[in-house]
C-alpha cells in the first residue's frame, strides 16, 4: 500500500515539476520539442512511472530509483570539464568523430552542429531542432511511442538536448561516430537526454556510445534514442555502459528499419547500478534485417534488466537477438524479449537466444523469451538457458595444467565472446574484448578508468 502511495507522490512530483517549469522549458527550446510536450505530459499523467505491477517492468523496481533524493534541473548547469580526461575512452587505432554529452547536455568541445565532409551532420539535438526543424519534424517522436511507456512520455515532456546524427542519402564513410555520455556533477543528479540518429537511403553509419560517470555521486539517467534506418541503409550501433555502481540508468531505444536495411544494435554492460535497457525494433520494409545483441557482466548488487521487442510488420524480414549474461555476487538480472510477427509478415525469420551463467547462489536471473506469431509461413525460434560453468570443461582445462581461476576466466570469456565476435569494427572489438577480459578479472574497477582518482566507492 505504501509503495502505491509513494508512486503516486512521485508521479505528482514529476507532474508538478513540469508545470512549474513549463514556461522556461518552452522558451528555451524549439517548437519541434514544444509541440509534443503537452500530449506527452498528458500521457505521463495517465501512465506514471512504471512499477512492478506492469508485466513489462515486473523484475525492476523503477519507482525506487526515482524516489532516492536527486537534484533535478531544467536548465543546463555549467560543469568544468577537461576533455583530455577522456583519454581512456579512446579506442586505439580507431579514428572517431567525438560528440560529448555532459549530464545530458551537448558539451561544446566542437561546433554545436557540424556538417562533415560527405554531408553528414552531427552535433547537438537542441541546435538541430533550431536549424533543421523540418528534418526533425519528420522523425522526432515518430518511432518513440510516448503513449505506451511512462518513461518515454517523461522524456518527451522534458526533451531539450542530446545528440543528433544525420547521414544523408548515399553518404557515410568508415569513420565511426563516438558519443561519450559523461556524468559529472558535484551533487546527485537526475539526467534526461533525447537522441536522434537518421541514416537515409543507401547510407552507412557506425555509432559507438560510451556511458561513463566521472564522479561518485548518485545519478539517474532516463534517455530515449530514436534511430531511423532508411532503405538499403546500414547501421552499426554499439553501446558500452560503464558507469559507477551508484548510477542508475534507464535507456530506451527505438530502431525503425525500412526496406532492405541492415542494423546491428549491441549493448555491452560492464558496470552500473540499476540498469534497464529497452530496445524496440520495428522492421517496416521488406527484406530488412536486424541484430539486437547484448552482453552484461554483473557483480555486487547490480541489476540489469534487458527488454527487447521486435516487431515484424512486413514480410521477408530477418531478426536475430542474442543476449548473454554472467551474474556474480548478489547481482540480479532479467531478460524479456518479445518477437511479434504480424499477420501479413509472411516469410519472416526471427530468432532469439538468452543464455545466462550464475556464479553464486545469491545471484538471480529471470528470463522471459516470448513469441507472438500471427503469420503461418515463418521460421521463429527462441531459447533460454540459465546454468553455470561446465564442471567438465573446467576439469578438462585443469587437467591440462591451467589453474582453476584461469580456467573459469577462459570459459567466461569464451561465453561472452559470441557477442563480442559480432562487432564488425575491428579496433572496437579488440578494445571491448580487452575491457571484458579486464572486467572478468576484476581489474576494471571504475576507479582505474576514472581520471579523478578520488578512490571513492567503486
Amino acid at each position, binding site marked *: 500500500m505504501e509503495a502505491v502511495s509513494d508512486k503516486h507522490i512521485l508521479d505528482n512530483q514529476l507532474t508538478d515539476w513540469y508545470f512549474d517549469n513549463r514556461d522556461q522549458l518552452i522558451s528555451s527550446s524549439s517548437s519541434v520539442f514544444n509541440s509534443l510536450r503537452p500530449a506527452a505530459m498528458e500521457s505521463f499523467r495517465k501512465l506514471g512511472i512504471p512499477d512492478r505491477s506492469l508485466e513489462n517492468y515486473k523484475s525492476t523496481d523503477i519507482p525506487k530509483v526515482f524516489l532516492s533524493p536527486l537534484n533535478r534541473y531544467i536548465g543546463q548547469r555549467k560543469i568544468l570539464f577537461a576533455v583530455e580526461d577522456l583519454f581512456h575512452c579512446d579506442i586505439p587505432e580507431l579514428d572517431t568523430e567525438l560528440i560529448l554529452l555532459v549530464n545530458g547536455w551537448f558539451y561544446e568541445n566542437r561546433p554545436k552542429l557540424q556538417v562533415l565532409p560527405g554531408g553528414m551532420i552531427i552535433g547537438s539535438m537542441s541546435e538541430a531542432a533550431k536549424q533543421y526543424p523540418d528534418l526533425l519534424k519528420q522523425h522526432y517522436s515518430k518511432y518513440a511511442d510516448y503513449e505506451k511507456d511512462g518513461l518515454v512520455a517523461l522524456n518527451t515532456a522534458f526533451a531539450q538536448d542530446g545528440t543528433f546524427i544525420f547521414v544523408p542519402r548515399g553518404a557515410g564513410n568508415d569513420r565511426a561516430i563516438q558519443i561519450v555520455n559523461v556524468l559529472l556533477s558535484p551533487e546527485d543528479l537526475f539526467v534526461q537526454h533525447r537522441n536522434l540518429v537518421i541514416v537515409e537511403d543507401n547510407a552507412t553509419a557506425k555509432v559507438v556510445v560510451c556511458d561513463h560517470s566521472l564522479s561518485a555521486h548518485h545519478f539517474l539517467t532516463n534517455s530515449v534514442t530514436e534511430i531511423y534506418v532508411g532503405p538499403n541503409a546500414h547501421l552499426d550501433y554499439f553501446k558500452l555502459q560503464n558507469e559507477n555502481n551508484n548510477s542508475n540508468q534507464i535507456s530506451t531505444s527505438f530502431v525503425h528499419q525500412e526496406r532492405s536495411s541492415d542494423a546491428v544494435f549491441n549493448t555491452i554492460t560492464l558496470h552500473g547500478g540499476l540498469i534497464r535497457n529497452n530496445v524496440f525494433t520495428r522492421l517496416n520494409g521488406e527484406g530488412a534485417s536486424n541484430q539486437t545483441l547484448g552482453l552484461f557482466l554483473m557483480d555486487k548488487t547490480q541489476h540489469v534488466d534487458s527488454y527487447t521487442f521486435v516487431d515484424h510488420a512486413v514480410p521477408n524480414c530477418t531478426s536475430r537477438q542474442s543476449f548473454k549474461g554472467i551474474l556474480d555476487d548478489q547481482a540480479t538480472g532479467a531478460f524479456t524479449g518479445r518477437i511479434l510477427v504480424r499477420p501479413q509478415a509472411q516469410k519472416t525469420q526471427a530468432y532469439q537466444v538468452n543464455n545466462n551463467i550464475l556464479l553464486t547462489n545469491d545471484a538471480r536471473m529471470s528470463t522471459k*523469451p516470448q513469441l507472438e506469431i500471427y503469420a503461418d509461413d515463418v521460421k521463429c525460434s527462441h531459447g533460454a538457458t*540459465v546454468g553455470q560453468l561446465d564442471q567438465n570443461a573446467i576439469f578438462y582445462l585443469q587437467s591440462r595444467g591451467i589453474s582453476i581461476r584461469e580456467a573459469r576466466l577462459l570459459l567466461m570469456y569464451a561465453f561472452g565472446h559470441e557477442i563480442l565476435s559480432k562487432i564488425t569494427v575491428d579496433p572496437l572489438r579488440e578494445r571491448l574484448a580487452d575491457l571484458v577480459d579486464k572486467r572478468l578479472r576484476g581489474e576494471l574497477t571504475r576507479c582505474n578508468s576514472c581520471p579523478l582518482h578520488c578512490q571513492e566507492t567503486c
Partner: protein
Amino acid sequence: MNGDQDPIINQVTQREYKYGFITVLDNDALPKGLNEDIICQLSAKKDEPEWMLEIRLKAFRYWLTMKLPEWAHLKIPVIDYQDIIYYSAPKSKKPTGRFEDVDPELLKTFDKLGIPLDEQKHLSGFAVDAVMDSISVKTTFKESLADVGIIFSSFSDAVREHPDLIRKYMGSVVPYRDNFYAALNSAVFSDGSFVFIPKGVRCPMELSTYFRINAANTGQFERTLIVAEEGAYVSYLEGCTAPKRDKNQLHAAIVEIVAHTDAEVKYSTVQNWYPGDKNGKGGIYNFVTKRGICLGDRSKISWTQVETGSAVTWKYPSCILRGDSSVGEFYSVAVTNNHQQADTGTKMIHIGKNTHSTIVSKGISAGKGQNSYRGLVRVSKNAENARNYSQCDSLLLGDQCGAHTFPYIEVDNQSAIVEHEATTSKIGEDQIFYCNQRGIDTETAIGLIVNGYAREVLNKLPMEFAVEAQKLLQISLEGSIG
C-alpha cells in the same frame, strides 16, 4: 498448393462435432444466479456436512473481492456469473451405486459416448466415474478396487464417507484464495472424483472420470482430488464432452494431486468440450486450475493433456516439486481451430534438491485459432541441482491463426540448469510434396505429419486413450493447412 487444399479446409472446418447431441432428461436444478442462499441450497442438496458449507461460503466471500484475471492472451466476452445455473442434476432415483438403478437414458448417453457403464461390457483394466452436469452417475469397479484398499468414488460420496481425508487434503494444493476461478469453484463445486491409493499399492487398473455437460445454461464445476500415499502408483484419465449449444457454457474445475514419498501419479486428459461452431458461436469456456504437489522424496507427477475442444481454454497443470529428487512432467498437445483460443502451459516450482522437470508442449493452430503457451519454471533458493528442460513447438496451419509462446524462467540458485526452446513453423511444402510423390494424398499426408509432430506427447497416454486422441486430432485438424 493452396488451391488443392481449400476444399480440404472446408471439409474439415465444416465437420460436425461428433459428441454434440443432447440427452433429454428431467433435471433437478437450482435457479440461475449466485449468492449465499444458492450455495446453502446446493450444499443441502448434496447432503453435505456443516464444515463443507463453511468452506464454500468462505470461498464465495473471498471470490466476491476478487478481480477477473486479464493477463492471459485471450479475448473473453464478459461472463455474467448471475446468468448461470450452478447446480443441475439428472433427475432419477436416489443413486444407489448399483448398475441396475442407473437411469437407462443416462446409460444410453454414456454408451453413445463410448463409455459403457456396465462393468461386463467394459474394456478390461478401466474403472470409470461418470459425471453428468453436477453429479456423478456411476462409479464402476468401486468394490473390486476397495479390496486392495483403494478409494475411488465421486467427490460427494467421499465428503460423506471419508471426511477426514477430504478435510486433510482438499485445498492443500489449490487453496480457495489461489485465483478467481479456483475461488469460484471452491464455492460452488458440484462433483468430481476422489482417489486415494494407500501405502505401497499399485493401482491395478486405469482410473478415469468422464465429464459430460448436458443441461443448458449450466456451469460445470468439478473437483478432483488424488492422493497417493508412500510408494503408491496410479494412472488417472479424464475425458470430457458437451452438447452443441449456441450459448457459451462455463466450466471451471480444480484438480489437486498429492504424491507422498516414492509415489507416482500420472494424470492424462483428453479434453474435447464443444469448441463452438465455425463462426465461433457457442462452445465451452474452460477455466481449470490443476496442480500437483510432490510432497515426499522421489515422488513423481506427470501431466499429459490433449486439448482439442473448448472455445476458450485457460489451463496450467502445475507441479510443486517439494520433495528431494522429485520429478514433474508436462506433456501437452493443444489444438485450436476455427475461433478457438487456448492459453495453456504449466508451472514447475522447484523447491526440493535434485528435482527434475520436463515440459513438452506442442501447439497446433488452424483456422482463426489462437494458441498460446504460457509457462513458469521457478527454481527457489534451496533447490540445489534443479534441472528443467522445456520444449514448446508450434505448428501453424493457415494464415489467419496465431501461435504464441510466453515462458517465464526465474532462477534463484546457481546450481540449476534450466533450458527452454521454442520453435514456430508451418508444415513444409517439401514434406507434403514428398508424401504426394509417394502416392499419399495431401490430406493423409498432413494427418501423418501432424501425428508425427504430436507423437512425443501421444506416446505418454495410456494405449486406449492414445488411439482415441489420435483420432480426435485427425477430426479436429486433418487437412486444415492453408
